[in-house]
């Protein structure tokens, strides 16, 4: 693909609002995971909760008010993202800026609470809160965009796939710039659902640890603004270089233990970027800390890159932010490139003896040009994308 310029980027997670708060936590190795106080689960689950989501949306957007859209709103304000969108609208026109969002939960928490109260209230705003597109509908109104868009929902690979969507939509001439990203927030469906599957850890998640027992769920929202890159981008520019997608065709909620689909997605991303595996300086792993998932990803990554390429998962910092995980990956990749460091993996105490030595348990400085990000999800969906610096 022709590289695209990432001219705006924002993230809100349990680590804090904005990239700087995220960077500080990654640098210090501070995990945001804590015992889950949101729902009472039968086990001592830990979670990465975003606090301060009690304030309703401004009255002009009150029909959209729900936890998921409040979280999205926070990520519009963070990192000056909405100002970047306004600049893109002024440059291209509101109808030429695509809006491709991703979520797995949408605002289903609102519906859960209505069912618990015994009935849907009068004026229940299905399209603005519950529906999968509620996030896209809110952002279209909030940002004043009038171009093409949809909400992509492929479970935990939802926002990761948006990098590929934006690249194709711009190549097809449907838009000149694209706002991508999304939000995933707590709800009973995911908290009790992952517990029912037996893949939720008691205590904090420990990616790639020999004692890992499952995931910790987190909340996050993040956005990126993509534009065509100039012929000679500024050295500090952040670029999207390649994307890859595949399906396991194996099981609805369990990954192919051989990691074949994951390897295909990573290989395609490399081919799309025109890069050899050796060009990748850091791999931001999906690594949710399930027994099978981590093993499959380690196998796929080591098969393609060998044992040494530095790698880590951000799940020990933020929890597994489900549909928003792709934006956490993008933010971690951008920070690693801009600030020259490799993040570690808090709560990973002893690397599983069967895994490659490239796993980072603690962070360290390093010069980084190219980062591969992985996101995999239910339905056997796999997505990888590569971010890089324009510096030679």
């Amino acid at each position, binding site marked *: 693909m022709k590289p695209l310029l990432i001219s705006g980027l924002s993230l809100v997670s349990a680590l804090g609002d904005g990239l700087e708060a995220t960077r500080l936590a990654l640098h210090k190795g501070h995990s945001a995971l804590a015992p889950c106080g949101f729902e009472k689960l039968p086990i001592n689950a830990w979670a990465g909760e975003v606090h301060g989501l009690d304030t309703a949306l401004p009255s002009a957007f009150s029909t959209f008010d729900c936890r998921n859209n409040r979280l999205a709103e926070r990520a519009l304000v963070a990192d000056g993202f909405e100002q970047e969108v306004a600049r893109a609208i002024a440059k291209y026109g509101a*109808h030429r800026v695509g809006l491709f969002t991703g979520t797995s939960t949408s605002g289903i928490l609102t519906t*859960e609470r209505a*069912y618990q109260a015994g009935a849907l209230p009068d004026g229940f705003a299905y399209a603005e809160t519950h529906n999968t597109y509620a996030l896209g*509908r809110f952002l279209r109104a909030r940002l004043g965009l009038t171009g093409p868009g949809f909400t992509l929902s492929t479970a935990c690979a939802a926002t990761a*796939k948006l990098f590929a969507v934006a690249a194709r939509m711009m*190549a097809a001439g449907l838009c000149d710039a694209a706002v991508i990203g999304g939000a995933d927030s707590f709800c009973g469906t995911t908290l009790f659902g992952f517990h029912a599957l037996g893949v939720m850890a008691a205590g904090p998640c420990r990616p790639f640890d020999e004692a890992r027992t499952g995931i910790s769920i987190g909340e996050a929202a993040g956005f990126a603004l993509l534009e065509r890159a100039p012929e000679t981008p500024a050295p500090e520019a952040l670029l999207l270089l390649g994307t890859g997608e595949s399906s*396991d*065709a194996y099981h609805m909620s369990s990954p192919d233990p051989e990691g074949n689909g994951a390897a295909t997605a990573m290989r395609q991303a490399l081919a799309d970027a025109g890069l050899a595996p050796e060009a990748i300086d850091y791999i931001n792993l999906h690594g949710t800390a399930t027994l099978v998932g981590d093993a499959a990803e380690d196998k796929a990554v080591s098969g393609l890159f060998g044992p040494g390429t530095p790698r880590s998962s951000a799940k020990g910092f933020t929890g597994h932010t489900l549909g928003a995980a792709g934006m956490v990956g993008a933010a971690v990749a951008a920070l690693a490139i801009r600030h020259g460091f490799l993040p570690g993996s808090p709560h990973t105490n002893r690397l599983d003896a069967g895994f490659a030595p490239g796993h980072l348990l603690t962070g360290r400085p390093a010069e980084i040009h190219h980062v591969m990000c992985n996101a995999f999800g239910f339905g056997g969906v796999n997505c990888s994308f590569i971010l890089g610096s324009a510096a030679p």
Partner: protein
Amino acid sequence: MKLFLNAVGLRGPGLDGWEASALILAGKVPYLAAPTAIPPATLLPPNERRRAPQTVRLALAVGAEAFASARLAPADCAAVFASSGGDGETIHDILATLAGPLRELSPTRFHNSVHNVAAGYWSIATGAKTPATSLCAHDGSFVGGLLEAGAQALAAEGMVALIAYDLPYPEPLASVRHIGAAFGVALLLSAVSSTQSLARLEIELCAPDSYACTRPELEDLRRNIPAARVLPLLEALARGEEAAVELDYFDDLALAVRVTPL
């Protein structure tokens, strides 16, 4: 975007497969209202067939029909799934369970609650390790899916399946979200023509104008089922005459499609 349409699968009320439906859409055979007949998901192994919700059965049925008529292997093609919601029965069941005293979800129900449930079962059923995606734009989901499938076809120069489907919710969600009936459509799209190509499609975004289906019964479906917003395109294809149609997307944006049957 310039695309070629190579095969169609269709299931809706009174519309049992593309071959029979094309005669109705062309006005050669009267439309007779009947509940949507959703065939069993024979693509799936028996244990998965039992677990698969209605949404999956509908999506698999129209997808299988399109690939069978084109004599193509689904495993070779990327697939885009578009639906205005997930599986309503599954979501209602989870919501009711979470509202009850014992908040224990079924693991199968949980993994069936994701929007990409049909995409997941499709890849398992067909062995397709190609990319599969799933998207929603509320009432505009069909056009959202067509844009994504079209952009994929242009990028990969291969065949891409677009499978759009909607089913009514059970109560109480049905009272806040009306979907008229179960309706599914599959289109096989490509950037280059083939011997199977049925029509050339020239697609561009446009300001919405009021556009309706020719037949009032079909217009009723188009207005009440998001996936049925494909019907103007299918009417033009069935009539076999070049036509400019418009597909509803958002309140302020529509899709103009010039259909040239081949």
